[in-house]
């Protein structure tokens, strides 16, 4: 049995680490204090809010990798819709507490990045004016398709629908994810790769035991696994 | 200050309570009035004790303590009854609770 109240002390230790750390590691501070910086190094649009409809500030280079704001969708390649990880299973839509996610499933399947036939989201909208950044969608996603973005300057001149992010706004490459949250992305990719190799090993063992079409299948999947590892590195 | 000042004040407070109990229809206000009367009595106890021959016996404060405890119990039970009555009659108006009266 654990010590009574130890959970509270654990939490207090975490907050205390944050408290002390914020004095010694300036990169922990996600606050965007423009007054720290000289005139030239301000982000391009700082203090200059969007004038045209649909235009949004998209500078995320100044936040730290401890910052999380709203969800984004991951894809693996250069052509977003071909390599989208989301298969429109709608788990995130149903577990979202404020119900800010809207998904429409595609009618036909399409090849995903590993060459498997999958459904894909025909529409994927997140209303960030409703989203409360709880990360439950990230936790429930079995495909690692939705993660948190740190983009924060989302102001828009359009009150109606301006904060409704569509698929095009949400889709970000895995490389971008590595750029904004390096540690988390590396851990996630490692886990995906591990799971994949474990699955393969299991499948291989099963296939060898059955002695059925072992070579072709194993060959195809090892290739895919290698690709995955390259991305992780 | 003399004992008489306190006694007259207590009598006045008691009569205010009595007036409330006689002239209001709402059962909760009648309960207020009973509380006022009890407190006036407590004031008398303390005043008599203060001006008594032998205050070291502490009769006044002891009796007042017991009176306060009993009054607290009375309020609790009284209000619980009132809630039960309200649930039954949908009112706490004393004059509409007349089901025992002959028609």
């Amino acid at each position, binding site marked *: 049995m654990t010590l009574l109240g130890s959970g509270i002390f654990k939490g207090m230790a975490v907050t205390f680490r944050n408290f002390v750390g914020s004095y010694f590691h300036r990169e922990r501070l996600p606050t965007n204090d423009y007054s720290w910086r000289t005139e030239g190094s301000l982000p391009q649009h700082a203090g200059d809010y969007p004038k045209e409809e649909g235009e949004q500030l998209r500078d995320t280079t100044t936040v730290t990798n401890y910052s999380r704001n709203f969800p984004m969708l991951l894809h693996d390649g250069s052509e977003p819709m071909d390599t989208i990880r989301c298969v429109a299973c709608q788990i995130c839509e149903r577990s979202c507490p404020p119900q800010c996610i809207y998904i429409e499933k595609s009618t036909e399947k399409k090849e995903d990045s590993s060459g498997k036939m999958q459904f894909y989201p025909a529409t994927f909208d997140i209303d960030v004016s409703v989203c409360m950044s709880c990360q439950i969608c990230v936790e429930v996603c079995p495909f690692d398709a939705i993660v948190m973005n740190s983009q924060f300057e989302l102001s828009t001149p359009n009150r109606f629908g301006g904060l409704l992010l569509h698929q095009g706004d949400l889709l970000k490459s895995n490389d971008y994810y590595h750029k904004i949250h390096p540690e988390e992305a590396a851990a996630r990719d490692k886990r995906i790769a591990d799971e994949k190799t474990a699955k393969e090993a299991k499948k291989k063992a099963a296939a060898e035991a059955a002695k059925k079409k072992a070579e072709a299948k194993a060959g195809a999947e090892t290739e895919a696994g290698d690709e995955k590892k390259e991305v992780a590195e | *200050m*003399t*004992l*008489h000042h*306190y*006694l*007259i*004040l207590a009598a*006045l*407070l*008691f*009569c*205010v*309570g*009595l*007036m*409330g*109990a*006689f*002239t*209001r*229809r*709402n059962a*909760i*206000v009648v309960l*207020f*009035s009973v*509380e*006022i009367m009890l*407190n006036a009595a407590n*004031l008398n106890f*303390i005043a008599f*004790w*203060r*001006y008594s021959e032998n*205050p*070291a016996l*502490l009769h006044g*404060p*002891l009796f007042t*303590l*017991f009176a*306060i405890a*009993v*009054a*607290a*119990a*009375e*309020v*609790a*039970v009284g*209000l*619980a*009854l009132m*809630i039960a009555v*309200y*649930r039954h009659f949908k009112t*706490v108006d*004393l*004059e509409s609770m007349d089901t025992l009266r002959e028609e």
Partner: protein
Amino acid sequence: MNEVVAFWILSVIAVFGALVAVRKRNLIHGVFALLVFFAGLSGLFLLLLAEFIAAVQVLVYIGAVGILLLFAIMLTERVTGDDDRRVTSRGWFWGLVVTAAVFVVLLLPAIQQLPPPKAAQTIDPSVKELGHKLMNPYVVTLEVLALLLTAALIGAVTAAQGVRMPKEEDSPE
């Protein structure tokens, strides 16, 4: 000098509070006026050097009874506390007459029969002495009081709980 001023201020507060409490139409205002009355009385107890009783008065009457009354009003009347029906009872005239009579009867002995007022003695009532008294000669009273309070607690819960609805009538959530 201090004592006289304090006495008059506190007695005006107490009488005013009591009058407002019994005559105010809005019940919640009435409760707060009642609390003003209790506070004034507590001040008078302090003036009579019964400091422990004054503290208990604040603790029990203002802290507990006041809250209880507020809750009872919110549970029985409307939340606003307004009483828009006729508030004065049918027998109000005879009530006032009886009240006046009682007042006169109470005052007559107070004025006539009591010995002439003495100078107030300086007394030192210690809470410790009160505790010893409660534990030694009055311990049976104290125990009976504890029993009474427990009985009142159980009685209040049973009375306020009302009749429990049968299981079938519970609406399925």
